[in-house]
C-alpha cells in the first residue's frame, strides 16, 4: 500500500488559495492517506458524495446481475419443457435473483441517494460518522461479492429468498450456497446497521440553522423513517441468520423438527425483519417522487405534513403486520384476524400519500420530463400493486393466493413499479446535480416507455397465471398441463417472458443513455438549476464541492431554495421569480466560511470491512482462516480508534497572513 503524505490541496478551503501545509505526523499505524485524483482516492475517501456514487455504481452492477438471473428464469419458462436450467439451477436462480435485487440493488441504491442527498438537503457538509459511512459501503461491496462468489464455489443458495426452515437445513440443501447466503447477508447487514445509525444521527443532529424537522424535504423524511426501520429490523434478521449458521455449521438444533423445533420460529423472525424491509425498499422511492412531482407540477407538495406523518405512520404500523406473510401456516383465528386488520389499516397512510401526489399534480403546470414520467408511473403502478396487496390482507383470499404467481405479480408491481421506478426517477432528476450533464430526454423517453410496457407485459399476466393456480417457483410447465384454449398458461407465460426481454432492453437503454450523455460532444453542460427545483441540494455547485456549501444557509422555509427565488404577491397571490438560481448562489456565497476542516481520508474502513469476508470464508472452509480474519478485525479496529476522524489543526493550512478570525467549521470528532 502506498503511503502518501497530505498535500495542501487535500484541504477544502473556500475563498483563498491554500498556503503551505505541514504534513501531519500520523497518529495511527499508517500515515493518513491524502487526496489524489487517481483511483486511490476512491478507496480511502470518506466523502459522502463519492460514497453515494460508489453505492450507486455497485448497486447498478448487482441490478444487472439480478436482471440476468431474472431473464434466465423467464427464458426457462418461455416454452414448455424448458431446458435452459435444471431444477437445481432454477432453485438457485430464483433465490439469488430475489436476494440480489432486495439486498444488493434496491436497498443500497436507496442508500446511494440517501448518502448523496441527505446531507445536501439538510445543509450539512458531511454525515455524522464519515469513516463509518465508508465502512458501510465496503461491507456492502464485500458482502455482495462474497454472496455471489458462491456461484463459483459449488452453487448459490437454493431455499428461496425467505429461506424457510427446515428446508434450509443441510439435509435438504447440502451445498454451501445457504452458508454463503447467511454469512453474506450478515456482512451486508452490518452495512445497513452502520448506515442507519449514521444517517439517523446526521438528520437529527446536523441540520442547518433553521432547518426544523418540519422544514426537511420529504426525501430526507422518508430516509429517516427508513433508517429507523433498518435500525430495528436488521438485528432481528441477524439473530435468524446466526441461528441458521449455528444450525448448519455447528449442528445446533434450532430448526431440527425431530428434536421438537418449531419451524414457525424462522418464519416469525424472518418476517419481523421482512415486512419492515418492504417499507425499507419503498419509502425512499416515495421520498424521491415527493421531490420530483412538485418540481414538475410547479406547485408545492400537497399536504406536506400529512405526507411526512403518513410516512412515519407506515413506519410504525409496518411492525405489526408481519404475520400476513404466514396466513397459510395455521396461526389460528385470533392472530390471523389481528394481522389481517392491521394490514388493511396500513393501506390507509399509503392511500393518503397517493391522494397527496395526485392533488400535487392537480391544477399544476405539468411538464412531462423523464423524471416526472417515472414518478407518475410509480403512482399508477404502485396503486395497482397496492390494490392486489389489499386482496392479500383478506385472509381467506390470501389462503388461495399463497405461493402462486399472483403473489409474484403483486410484489413486482410494488417493487418494480414502485421502488425501481422511483429510483429511476431519481437518476434522471439528480443526474445533472451529480454529473453536470442532463441525461438525454429522447433516449430517456424510450427508456421509460420500454420499461413501463415491458413491466406490465411481464408482471400483468402473472395475476392471471396466479389466480388460475400456477405455483410460484415452478420450474417447468408442460403443454399437457397448460390448460385449454388459446389464453392458457402457456400463452401467458410466453407473454411474460417476451415482456421481460422488453424490460431488459429498456434498462439497457438507460446505460446507453448514460454513455451517450457523457461521451457525446453535443451534450451541453447543464445549467445550475435545470429543473427550477425547490430544495437545498440545488443551492450548491454541479457537482457540489467537497465541502458542499461555501456558506451554510440559514433556513427560513420549507422549500427554502424556492422561497429565495420566488416571491408571492400578498394581494394577488401571484408567484413571480425575483432571483435566478445563480443570483441566489452568489448571495449565499458572498461571505464564505474560511478554514473548513473536512473529515480526513482513512485506510481503516476498507481494511476493517475486508476482514469480514475473511472470517466468513474461514467459517466455511478453514477455522484457522477464521482466526486470521478475527485478528485482522481486532487490529484494524484498534488502528481505527487510534486515528482521530479529523486531522489535528496543524495538519491544515495555516490562516493566510492578514486574515482576521475566520469562521472555522469542523466536522465530527469520532466515527
Amino acid at each position, binding site marked *: 500500500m502506498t503511503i502518501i503524505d497530505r498535500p495542501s490541496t487535500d484541504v477544502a478551503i473556500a475563498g483563498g488559495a491554500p498556503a503551505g501545509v505541514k504534513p501531519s505526523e500520523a497518529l495511527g499505524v499508517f500515515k493518513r492517506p491524502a487526496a489524489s485524483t487517481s483511483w486511490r482516492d476512491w478507496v480511502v475517501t470518506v466523502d459522502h458524495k463519492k460514497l453515494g456514487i460508489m453505492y450507486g455504481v455497485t448497486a447498478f452492477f448487482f441490478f444487472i446481475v439480478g436482471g440476468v438471473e431474472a431473464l434466465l428464469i423467464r427464458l426457462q419458462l418461455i416454452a414448455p419443457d424448458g431446458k435452459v436450467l435444471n431444477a437445481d439451477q432454477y432453485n438457485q436462480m430464483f433465490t439469488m435473483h430475489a436476494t440480489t435485487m432486495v439486498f444488493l440493488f434496491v436497498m443500497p441504491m436507496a442508500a446511494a441517494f440517501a448518502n448523496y442527498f441527505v446531507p445536501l438537503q439538510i445543509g450539512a457538509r458531511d454525515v455524522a460518522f464519515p469513516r463509518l459511512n465508508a465502512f458501510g459501503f465496503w461491507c456492502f461491496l464485500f458482502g455482495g461479492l462474497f454472496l455471489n462468489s458462491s456461484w463459483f464455489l459449488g452453487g448459490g443458495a437454493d431455499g428461496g429468498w425467505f429461506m424457510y426452515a427446515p428446508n434450509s437445513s443441510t439435509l435438504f440443501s447440502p451445498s454451501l450456497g445457504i452458508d454463503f447466503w447467511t454469512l453474506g447477508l450478515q456482512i451486508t447487514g452490518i452495512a445497513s446497521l452502520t448506515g442507519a445509525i*449514521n444517517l439517523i*444521527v446526521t438528520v437529527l*443532529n446536523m441540520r442547518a440553522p433553521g432547518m426544523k424537522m418540519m422544514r426537511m424535504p420529504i426525501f430526507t423524511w422518508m430516509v429517516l423513517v427508513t433508517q429507523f426501520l433498518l435500525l430495528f429490523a436488521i*438485528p432481528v434478521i441477524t439473530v435468524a441468520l446466526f441461528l441458521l449458521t449455528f444450525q448448519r455449521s455447528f449442528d445446533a438444533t434450532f430448526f431440527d423438527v425431530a428434536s421438537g423445533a418449531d419451524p414457525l420460529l424462522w418464519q416469525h423472525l424472518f418476517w419481523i425483519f421482512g415486512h419492515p424491509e418492504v417499507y425499507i425498499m419503498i419509502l425512499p422511492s416515495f421520498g424521491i417522487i415527493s421531490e420530483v412531482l412538485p418540481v414538475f407540477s410547479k406547485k408545492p407538495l400537497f399536504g406536506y405534513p400529512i405526507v411526512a406523518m403518513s410516512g412515519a405512520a407506515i413506519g410504525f404500523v409496518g411492525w405489526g403486520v408481519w404475520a400476513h406473510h404466514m396466513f397459510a401456516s395455521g396461526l389460528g383465528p385470533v392472530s390471523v384476524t389481528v394481522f389481517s386488520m392491521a394490514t388493511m389499516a396500513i393501506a390507509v397512510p399509503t392511500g393518503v400519500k397517493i391522494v397527496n401526489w395526485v392533488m400535487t399534480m392537480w391544477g399544476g403546470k405539468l411538464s412531462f420530463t423523464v423524471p416526472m414520467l417515472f414518478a407518475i408511473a410509480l403512482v399508477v403502478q404502485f396503486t395497482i400493486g397496492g390494490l392486489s396487496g389489499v386482496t392479500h390482507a383478506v385472509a381467506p383470499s390470501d389462503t388461495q393466493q399463497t405461493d402462486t404467481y399472483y403473489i409474484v405479480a403483486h410484489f413486482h408491481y410494488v417493487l418494480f413499479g414502485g421502488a425501481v421506478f422511483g429510483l429511476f426517477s431519481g437518476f434522471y432528476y439528480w443526474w445533472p446535480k451529480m454529473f453536470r450533464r442532463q441525461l438525454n430526454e429522447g433516449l430517456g423517453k424510450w427508456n421509460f416507455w420500454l420499461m413501463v410496457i415491458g413491466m406490465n407485459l411481464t408482471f400483468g399476466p402473472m395475476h392471471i397465471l396466479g389466480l388460475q393456480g400456477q405455483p410460484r417457483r415452478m420450474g417447468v410447465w408442460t403443454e399437457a398441463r397448460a390448460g385449454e384454449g388459446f389464453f392458457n398458461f402457456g400463452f401467458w407465460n410466453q407473454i411474460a417472458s417476451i415482456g421481460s426481454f422488453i424490460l431488459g432492453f429498456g434498462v439497457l437503454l438507460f446505460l446507453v443513455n448514460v454513455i451517450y450523455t457523457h461521451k457525446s460532444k453535443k451534450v451541453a453542460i447543464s445549467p445550475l438549476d435545470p429543473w427550477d427545483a425547490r430544495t437545498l441540494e440545488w443551492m450548491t455547485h454541479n457537482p457540489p464541492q467537497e465541502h458542499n456549501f461555501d456558506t451554510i444557509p440559514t433556513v427560513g422555509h420549507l422549500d427554502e431554495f424556492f422561497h429565495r427565488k420566488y416571491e408571492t404577491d400578498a394581494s394577488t397571490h401571484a408567484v413571480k421569480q425575483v432571483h435566478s438560481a445563480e443570483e441566489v448562489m452568489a448571495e449565499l456565497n458572498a461571505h464564505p466560511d474560511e478554514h473548513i476542516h473536512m473529515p480526513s481520508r482513512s485506510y481503516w474502513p476498507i481494511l476493517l470491512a475486508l476482514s469480514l469476508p475473511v472470517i466468513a470464508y474461514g467459517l466455511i472452509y478453514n477455522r484457522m482462516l477464521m482466526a486470521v480474519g478475527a485478528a485482522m478485525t481486532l487490529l484494524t479496529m484498534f488502528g481505527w*480508534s487510534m486515528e482521530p476522524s479529523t486531522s489535528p489543526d496543524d495538519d491544515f493550512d495555516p490562516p493566510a497572513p492578514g486574515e482576521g478570525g475566520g469562521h472555522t467549521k469542523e466536522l*465530527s*470528532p469520532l466515527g
Partner: protein
Amino acid sequence: MAETAISHGHDVGHGAHSSTGLSNNKLGMWMFLGSECLLFGGLISTYMLYKGRVNAGPQPDQIFDIPFTSVSSFILLMSSLTMVLAVSAAQRKDERNMNLWLVITALLGATFVGGQVYEFTAFYREGLGFTTSLFGSSFYTLTGFHGVHVSVGIIMLMALVGMNRNKRIPGDRAEVVELVGLYWHFVDIVWIIIFTLVYLIPS
C-alpha cells in the same frame, strides 16, 4: 498534539452545532443500543420458546446453580457501580481514579465472564452440550451472546485505559468514558432480564 485533536471534538461534539443538543457520538451510541435491544429480544424469544423442549440431556432446573449465578450476577451489577465512579472521575478530570475504576470495572466484568466459562464447563460435564437439545442450543446461544458482549466491553475498558495512558483518546475524554459506560450499563441491564427469565422463573 492530542490537545488540538480535542478541540475538534468539542466543536460538533457539543451542544452548539448539533440540532438536538446531544453530541453525535452519544446519539449514535443510543441508536446502537436501541438496535441491540432487538438483537437480544430475538435471542430471548428464541430461548423462551425452546426452554421447555428437552428431548435429551438435563432439564433447566436440574443443572442451574442459582446461588452461584446469583453471586456472579451480583459481581456484574457491582461493575455498573464502579463504571459510574469511573465516569464521575473522568468528568472531574481525576485521571488517577478514572483509570483505577475502569480497571476495577474490567476486572469485575472478567470475573463474571470467568464464572460463565466455569458454568458452561460444569453444564457440559453434566450432559448439556450445544447440540443436546433445543434448550441447550438456545441457552448457550443467548448467554453466549451476552458473554461476548461483556467481553467486548472489557476490551473497550482496557483500550480506554491504554489509550488514556498514551493521551490518545480522541475528542472529549469524559464523554468517551461515558459512552463506554452506556454500553456497559446496557449489557448489565440485559443480564438482569436474562437472569430473571432464564434462571429465576422456573420452566
